[in-house]
């Protein structure tokens, strides 16, 4: 999904490609937290849009190869997170851009296809996984308690709840699992009871459970959403959670219902590290 972007469109009103850029920007701006940067106003007043561009990743929509919007972004020293050139997309789709500045059904369909394609690109979860050939680049901070070493991933996109579950957020999706604290406490995990794909989970609702000879642990979901995938490998190999609960030992993926709202009740690496270290020192992990 394209969401939470600052959108800088070409907005050229004297060319069909510009009009399409403008319309596409409007369509995207109706989605989630996307906000439009007006290139005309940006030229005369920077303050408002510099703030917006600093807060959100930037999506640039260029109409033609003159790439006015990209040039404006470069002038303002903005980092472009994503770019689309309408003229190039038209070529790919074999759509001839006319001289008309009026949007007809044909252009509406083209804008719709651009919109869908942009949202679809992100539907392939950009969370890395061995299945997709991408790798994890987690940097772990560790601490030791007795003979146990606890790892906690240091990543701005990973959120924790105080029930020792993590969520790695990518767009409107998140991959969820338990932390090292849970797997060390449970020791050898013997069973995995997955949630059902399609289940709607409330924030802090149960997202399956895992069991060792010591205890059952019910996963407390950090986010609300719909279960779109579970880690089937855990049914045969629940020990993957013991090996690394953040990577091959992930539990489920959710399509998020209210990521912004839910995030208010979650914590980041620093706070979770602090809490877990304290718990590790006070609790006797046997």
């Amino acid at each position: 999904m394209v969401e939470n972007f600052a959108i800088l469109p070409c907005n050229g009103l004297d060319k069909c490609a510009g009009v399409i850029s403008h319309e596409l920007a409007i369509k995207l701006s109706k989605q989630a937290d996307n906000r439009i940067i007006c290139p005309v106003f940006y030229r005369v007043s920077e303050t408002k849009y510099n703030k917006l561009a600093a807060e959100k990743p930037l999506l640039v929509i260029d109409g033609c190869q003159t790439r006015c919007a990209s040039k404006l972004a470069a002038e303002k020293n903005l980092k472009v997170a994503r770019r689309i050139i309408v003229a190039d997309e038209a070529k790919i789709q074999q759509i001839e851009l006319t001289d008309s500045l009026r949007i007809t059904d044909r252009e509406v369909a083209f804008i719709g296809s651009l919109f869908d394609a942009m949202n679809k690109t992100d539907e392939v979860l950009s969370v890395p996984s061995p299945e997709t050939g991408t790798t994890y680049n987690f940097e772990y901070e560790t601490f030791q308690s007795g003979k146990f070493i606890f790892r906690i991933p240091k990543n701005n996109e990973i959120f924790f709840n105080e029930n020792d579950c993590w969520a790695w957020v990518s767009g409107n999706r998140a991959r969820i699992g338990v932390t090292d604290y849970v797997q060390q406490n449970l020791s050898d995990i013997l069973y995995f009871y997955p949630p059902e794909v399609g289940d709607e989970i409330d924030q802090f609702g149960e997202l399956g459970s895992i069991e060792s000879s010591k205890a059952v642990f019910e996963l407390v979901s950090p986010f609300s959403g719909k279960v779109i995938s579970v880690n089937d490998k855990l049914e045969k190999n629940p020990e993957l959670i013991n090996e690394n609960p953040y990577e091959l030992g992930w539990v489920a993926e959710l399509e998020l219902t209210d990521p912004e709202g839910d995030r208010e009740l979650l914590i980041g690496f620093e706070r979770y590290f602090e809490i877990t270290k304290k718990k590790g020192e006070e609790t006797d992990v046997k």
Partner: protein
Amino acid sequence: MSETTFMGVERSLIDWKPTIDYSKCDYCMECVRFCPHKVFEVREDEEIKLIIKNPHNCVVFCRACSKTCGPDALSFPDKNMTTQRIKEIRKEMEGHG
């Protein structure tokens, strides 16, 4: 429970603890053996042999003890209601912040 706050809220303000249905409880004491947080207390010499001694030690949103309970005698508050209450308290705290 080592933390005295949960999600930034004083633990004592959050109503989350197991409730024992004494009409079902058979005093097997599985929950007592299971819970590492000393939420329960056994009172061998009394008629009611099991009580919730330390409700605020109970980990908010944890219901694991109820899964060990054969006669299904343990229940917990509604998670959504508890989440809502935590949000309200946080808002009140911001207001006084």
